[in-house]
């Protein structure tokens, strides 16, 4: 039985949305149920993300809170920013093998108001471990790779900043409750924000936000039935996973085999081969953007340009809304929202919006094929999915 993504839900996002981890997860779930015309009883599978604050048994606690018991399939994610792209595969596989009929994938946290920026920064630094001190704030780790790129290929700081400028522009076009940052910023303004760790300024680092999102995977038969019952004809086509790949390569940045090849090379090739699509056939790119350098490296490793040419690709305008491969049309973790572990899920809900033709001001014309990417750790885990509008193939 084929599995499809049928709809999504999002909470408001920002510095203090007004409720904590459990309620944010309920909020995102409520929006996803209402979007798809499903009732809580229709959900028999769940993939969720643990809160940033430690907790012994987060999954049963959340299942009880969401009122979803009994479930026959429930899992927690654990791959950082690569979690949710990986969850697309886990959820569709669960439906296709009959482990569940309808899976809710949800991730939300109050990273800004419940945890707070200084605790986030300090405790993430601790988790880096004793062997990579004193460069132990997470931005400084990515910054080592950014300077490697600058020194090796002549990439400029302004080219890196342009990644954030694109994100802020796309965020500014969204409804305001959907984004943490609402104003555009030029590359020069991005460069003028406080220096965190050269060459990364504050605006080139992911935000610290409250918020979350959810999406629902079910059988094609259910999708057709729901479509008939609630919406008439297929104005809202289902979204199909047509290719997937993942690679796990290291934990410590010093143990990364080479800065010149992340796991995204193989993960991307695997996903695009399985989907049987070429780069020219991709209509939009949703690339995990914890830092500007992440995007720059990943577009290279996914083959949208050669290694070393990421700066030129970013500068070319091809990644803006009007370009060949619009990038992070919702604004990404740099400008839309970054509630910690849940942040990568917005790249997916935006992809669903785009492929269902519901992306409002940032709608990519005739978007039918999208590539969505997740990055966990410090380039440690790479996950790539190719998603298609359900009516594009028979």
């Amino acid at each position, binding site marked *: 039985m084929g599995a499809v993504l049928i709809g999504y839900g999002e909470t408001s996002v920002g510095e203090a949305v007004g409720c904590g981890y459990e309620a944010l997860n309920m909020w995102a779930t409520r929006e996803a149920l209402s979007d798809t015309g499903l009732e809580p009883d229709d959900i028999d599978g769940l993939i969720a993300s643990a809160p940033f604050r430690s907790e012994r048994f987060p999954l049963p606690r959340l299942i009880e809170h969401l009122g979803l018991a009994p479930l026959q399939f429930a899992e927690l994610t654990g791959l950082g920013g690569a979690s949710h792209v990986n969850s697309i595969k886990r959820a569709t596989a669960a439906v296709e093998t009959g482990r569940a009929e309808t899976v809710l994938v949800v991730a939300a946290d109050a990273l800004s108001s419940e945890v707070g920026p200084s605790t986030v920064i300090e405790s993430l630094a601790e988790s880096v471990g004793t062997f990579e001190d004193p460069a132990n704030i997470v931005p400084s780790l990515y910054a080592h790779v950014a*300077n490697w790129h600058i020194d090796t290929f002549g990439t400029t700081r302004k080219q890196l900043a342009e990644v954030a400028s694109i994100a802020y522009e796309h965020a500014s076009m969204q409804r305001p409750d959907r984004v943490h940052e609402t104003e555009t910023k030029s590359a020069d303004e991005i460069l003028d924000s406080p220096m965190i*760790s050269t060459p990364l300024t504050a605006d080139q680092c992911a935000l610290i936000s409250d918020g979350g999102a959810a999406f629902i995977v079910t059988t094609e038969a259910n999708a057709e039935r729901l479509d008939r019952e609630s919406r008439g004809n297929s104005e809202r086509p289902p979204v199909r996973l047509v290719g997937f790949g993942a690679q796990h390569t290291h934990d410590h*940045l010093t143990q990364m085999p080479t800065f010149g090849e992340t796991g995204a090379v193989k993960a991307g090739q695997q996903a695009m081969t399985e989907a049987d699509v070429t780069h020219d056939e991709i209509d939009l790119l949703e690339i995990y953007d914890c830092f500007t350098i992440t995007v720059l490296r990943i577009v290279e490793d996914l083959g949208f340009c050669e290694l070393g040419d990421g700066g030129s690709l970013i500068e070319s305008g091809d990644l803006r809304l009007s370009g060949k491969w619009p990038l992070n049309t919702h604004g990404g973790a740099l400008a839309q929202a970054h509630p910690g572990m849940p942040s990568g899920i917005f790249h997916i809900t935006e992809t669903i919006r785009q492929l269902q033709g519901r992306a409002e001001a940032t709608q990519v014309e005739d978007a039918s094929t999208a590539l969505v990417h997740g990055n966990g750790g410090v380039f440690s885990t790479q996950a790539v999915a190719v998603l298609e509008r359900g009516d594009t193939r028979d």
Partner: protein
Amino acid sequence: MTNRPMPSATTDHERQYWQRVADGDVCIVRCHACGSASHPPRRYCPVCYSDDWTFESITGTGTVYGHTCIHRPTRTFEADAPLVSAIVTLDEGPRLMGQVDCDPAAIEVGRRVCLDTSTLSSDDVRLVFELQE
């Protein structure tokens, strides 16, 4: 400079590693079963799973692979900002991360560096490299 005390190691080999660093003898792990060099130290060789390995002193020379100047370090090292950090490919093969005592503008990928062991003690196990000519 803020001292970096010995981390509270959770395993024997980590304790041994930090004791060696405190004594000015920075080491990598050399596996006798497969010959591979690795870091950080683990009970079993990550290549062949053998526990037949010993610590091997490094010469301390290597090449800068990645670098950054940290303007906003963690609270503990706030007073040391800005501080230069580098990932160094040791001449023995493995990579280490450490601080580099230099002008932030002077460091580049490919620069040769040498570990300065003179400041290492049980009160301060921070690895500090110096740029070579």
